[in-house]
């Protein structure tokens, strides 16, 4: 499986780039922010993305999708990373769509996947509870009462949560906090009684709601019970796939921020000379280039591993998320510094990459989390 994309994937990437160039550009995100847009993403743009098939890329054809695979979705995410496009692609397609595809029974899939592919619903993935990503840290309880589950708890950092139609909720049916056994995933309608959401506006001008579940009663067959190794394994696999998807998005941001910085180095003058001639800056740029070569490799390697259903998925996911987190931080910092004073102003767009870098760094585990996980995988 060579580490290159196919012609079809390249074509997809090119058409997404075309679409986002105007309609999904950073000016768009800035407008959503300055208008305090109640939704937080551009519904019209999202419709065009849906029309292009992006919402159905990883959904099997049997369920109304294109079955195009994650390597393809990765190319799309890379482009949204370049333009910092806000859309339900991460919450609904990458996270929730993957969980349902992997863990739903036929009825759940038939009900939900075509809706996702059709761009008709937004589904928030409600897994986080602490300050940091910690998949096993689940206090939210799902208590079986007759043929219902009753859910109680609070979830953090639910992307697009304030406009979600449904949630995938990670809750515990038994076991102690931090235990794998007992963790299960449930599909919950957002209008169910007992659910309240608080919109939190993040540093990157996107949304991540706080969602409270108080005695929320759902039918017992709302559980995603179709995955072989149970709820926690389903969660981990969903997260690994999403981490790789986020890494692809981050690669787009890294590339874009780097290219803008290099272009600026070629044009900006100080003391009568182009600052790109300064050797100290050249070496910093060259070192970033090298690190970005590594970023490209781990992203394509990990994307291909999803499509090949590789047993090495978890390690590759952590490598991708750890490395991209490290380098997005580096490149976005260097971007501001090399743009100088102008880079500190809100008018200049380079700062948007700094902010997105820090949010996506934390989302589903930062570099520290994944380095630790990698070390544990190697028993040290």
């Amino acid at each position: 499986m060579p580490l290159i994309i196919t012609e079809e994937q390249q074509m997809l990437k090119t058409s997404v780039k075309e679409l986002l160039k105007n309609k999904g550009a950073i000016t768009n995100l800035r407008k959503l922010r300055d208008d305090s847009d109640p939704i937080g993403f551009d519904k019209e743009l999202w419709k065009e993305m849906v029309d292009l098939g992006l919402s159905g890329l990883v959904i099997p054809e049997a369920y109304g999708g294109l079955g195009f695979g994650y390597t393809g979705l990765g190319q799309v995410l890379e482009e949204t990373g370049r333009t910092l496009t806000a859309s339900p692609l991460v919450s609904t397609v990458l996270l929730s769509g993957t969980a349902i595809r992997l863990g739903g029974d036929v009825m759940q899939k038939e009900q939900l996947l075509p809706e996702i592919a059709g761009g008709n619903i937004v589904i928030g993935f409600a897994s986080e509870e602490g300050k940091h990503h910690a998949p096993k840290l689940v206090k939210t309880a799902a208590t079986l009462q007759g043929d219902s589950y009753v859910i109680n708890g609070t979830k953090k950092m639910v992307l697009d949560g304030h406009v979600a139609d449904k949630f995938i909720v990670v809750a515990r049916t038994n076991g102690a906090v931090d235990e794998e056994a007992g963790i299960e995933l449930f599909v919950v309608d957002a209008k169910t009684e007992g659910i309240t959401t608080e919109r939190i506006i993040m540093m990157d001008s996107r949304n991540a709601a706080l969602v409270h579940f108080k005695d929320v009663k759902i039918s017992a067959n709302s559980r995603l019970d179709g995955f072989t190794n149970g709820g926690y394994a389903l969660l981990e696999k969903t997260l690994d796939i999403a981490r790789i998807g986020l890494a692809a998005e981050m690669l787009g941001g890294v590339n874009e921020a780097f290219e803008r910085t290099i272009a600026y180095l070629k044009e900006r003058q100080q003391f009568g000379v182009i600052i790109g001639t300064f050797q100290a800056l050249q070496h910093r740029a060259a070192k970033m280039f090298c690190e970005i070569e590594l970023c490209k490799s781990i992203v394509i390697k990990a994307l291909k591993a999803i499509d090949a259903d590789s047993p090495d998925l978890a390690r590759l996911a952590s490598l991708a998320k750890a490395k991209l987190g490290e380098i997005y931080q580096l490149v976005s910092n260097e971007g501001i510094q090399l743009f100088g004073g102008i880079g500190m102003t809100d008018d200049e767009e380079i700062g948007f990459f700094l902010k997105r870098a820090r949010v996506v760094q934390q989302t589903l585990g930062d570099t520290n989390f994944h380095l630790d996980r990698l070390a544990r995988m190697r028993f040290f």
Partner: protein
Amino acid sequence: MNDSIKQNLDIFRKETRAWLEANCPESMRQPVTSPNDLYWGGRNAKYISDDQRIWFERMLEKKWIVPYWEEKYGGGGLNNIEHKILTEEMTKLGCRKPLFSFGISMLGPALLKFATAEQKLKYLPEIVQGKIRWCQGYSEPGAGSDLAGLQTKAEDMGDHYLVNGQKVWTSYGDKSDWIFCLVRTNFEVSKHKGVSFLLIDMASEGVSTRPIKLISGKSPFTETFLDNVKVPKGNLINEPGQGWTIAKYLLTHERQMIGGVGETGTPPQLSEVAQECIGLTNGILSDSILRSKVAKFEMDEAIFDYTIERIIDEAKAGNNSGALSSFFKYYGTELNISRYELMLALQGYDGLAWEGEASNEGQLARLFCRTKGNSIEGGTSEIQLNIIAKRILGLPSS
């Protein structure tokens, strides 16, 4: 020091303390918690409280607004030792400065050194009285670190200068009355030699300002536009072409200020934040990768503090280490940037909020963004490294 002088100083100290205790209102002895607590004076000055007004007026009457300037300029005429005693006593009691003013800290020293007798008598007393709020107009768009490349033009029109150009990074430009500017009066000579130092009334026709929004949100900075502004020739300080000399002299004052401004209290101890945010497993931080970074940071932070201590001690012993200000600027700002990177990592999701009460309107995230400017303002980190390489290490220029 002979005994009678010493006795006099002891008396001065006692009298000073008594006066301060009697005259400084209780609320003016509380720590400053925000820039809004400060009194800046100016045409549109507002006191935040009666206490603030009373304190300013009493100090003004006592001539202790700028206690070390000569009395003819509205100062108190105190000598160095007396001034030190006054400062010590004010610090002991926690008395706030009665007036914050770039006129005192930045323009004043330039006027004292470079202006004519007439100019000094005109501008210095107004500064002391807080009548005029001054701001600084050095940087220009596109110039960045290359201050001397400035393009704002002041044409000699016989009886006045006609000024056209634009300034950026003017602190509180929208709240100031006058601006002291570097302008180019001569385009024929080498870039440093064509620069002059000009005082401009911002109420003049053609002057306008626009706030600069930073990545952290609002900021005290503005852009200042100068569009066919007529400036009396008497507003030029010293000779035409002397602007660069004056500016260099003032920049040393500015660099000192950046170190102190904006600091409200000591920053949090990272290891304590770490314990709270991450928790411990078997007595060590649960995230061992972050632990390693926090430990390294705290090592450097502690030793940087000892370095300040050492260099002060060396200076006291007469071991003057001039260009070390570049070391402090570089290392101090890089440390602060690291501190906030780590704070963000420690706070995780909670550190990412930008609005809302829970996060105090995104306080951490905004502070984090703001620190990125530390290594740019007041001479970039790259400039500081250049200075160290050349002036301290003596490495040759290419």
